[in-house]
């Protein structure tokens, strides 16, 4: 669960940083590049994980993850300056926070874009959760470990 806090904040903060640094059309380009990289995750991760598991046992996966985490913390601290040029110290006061949240949630433009991201992702998740049973039944030759080898949810932005 602690890991999920980190994983969730990474996506939110990287999107906000892209927004801070790039103009609108450039932002889409950068986000698309990030999406391309993320789309490699579900392909590479099980392969790397499988090798680690076979060579060093399952515990090694967590050591490697911890190593990646440490590298990212150092790289982030060293290479990314603060991009928020208008820090708002009152933004976390409950009243203001709820007010800001209300502002974005009442904005039909924001909702239209959120709806696109959400529903397209719903389709992707439907595939991920529907795939093990349907593809193994359909092909007639059930891959034995399909369900357990299902990659962790890919996060194509």
């Amino acid at each position, binding site marked *: 669960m602690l890991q999920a806090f980190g994983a969730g904040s990474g996506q939110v903060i990287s999107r906000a940083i892209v927004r801070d640094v790039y103009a609108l059309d450039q*932002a889409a380009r950068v986000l698309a590049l990030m999406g391309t990289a993320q789309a490699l995750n579900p392909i590479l991760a099980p392969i790397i994980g499988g090798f680690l598991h076979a060579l060093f046992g399952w515990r090694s996966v967590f050591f490697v993850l911890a190593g990646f985490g440490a590298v990212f913390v150092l790289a982030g601290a060293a290479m990314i300056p603060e991009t928020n040029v208008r820090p708002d110290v009152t933004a976390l006061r409950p009243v203001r926070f709820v007010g800001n949240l209300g502002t974005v949630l009442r904005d039909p433009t924001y909702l239209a874009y959120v709806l696109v991201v959400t*529903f397209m992702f719903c389709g*992707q998740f439907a595939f991920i*959760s529907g795939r093990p049973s349907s593809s193994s039944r359909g092909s007639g030759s059930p891959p034995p470990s399909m369900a357990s080898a299902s990659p962790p949810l890919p996060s194509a932005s």
Partner: protein
Amino acid sequence: MSGSFMTSRLTGRVPGDRLILIGTGLGAAAGFSMATLAWSGVTGVAAVIAPMFFFSLGLGLANPNAVAGAVGPYPHMAGLAAAGLGVIQMTGSAAYGITVGHLADGTAAPMATAIATAGLAAFLGFSLLRRRRARAP
């Protein structure tokens, strides 16, 4: 993946909103192709994977532009806008995926129907909200 790569090439030349319409439209069409195949009893991996390739292509075209569009207008609260987007995206699609998992009946039909519905909802929802916004001053 190829979709998001195409997006990184196309952005700047094609307006983001048009890429979103193309992407979601492609997603809806791919979903309906998959559902039609599944309901008419066509089995096999290709009948699922081929449409899914085009759905993912659509996702790669639509989503980076939609994220940019959602967070873009809020320079003073980019974090909040990105967080709101992330929460809705993740809870929504997790719930959707769980529901599809429970509906699984051994055929591809429930999943394909769910993918078609999601693509259509993205396409229609965006078209409608976009028109409403265009009318508003």
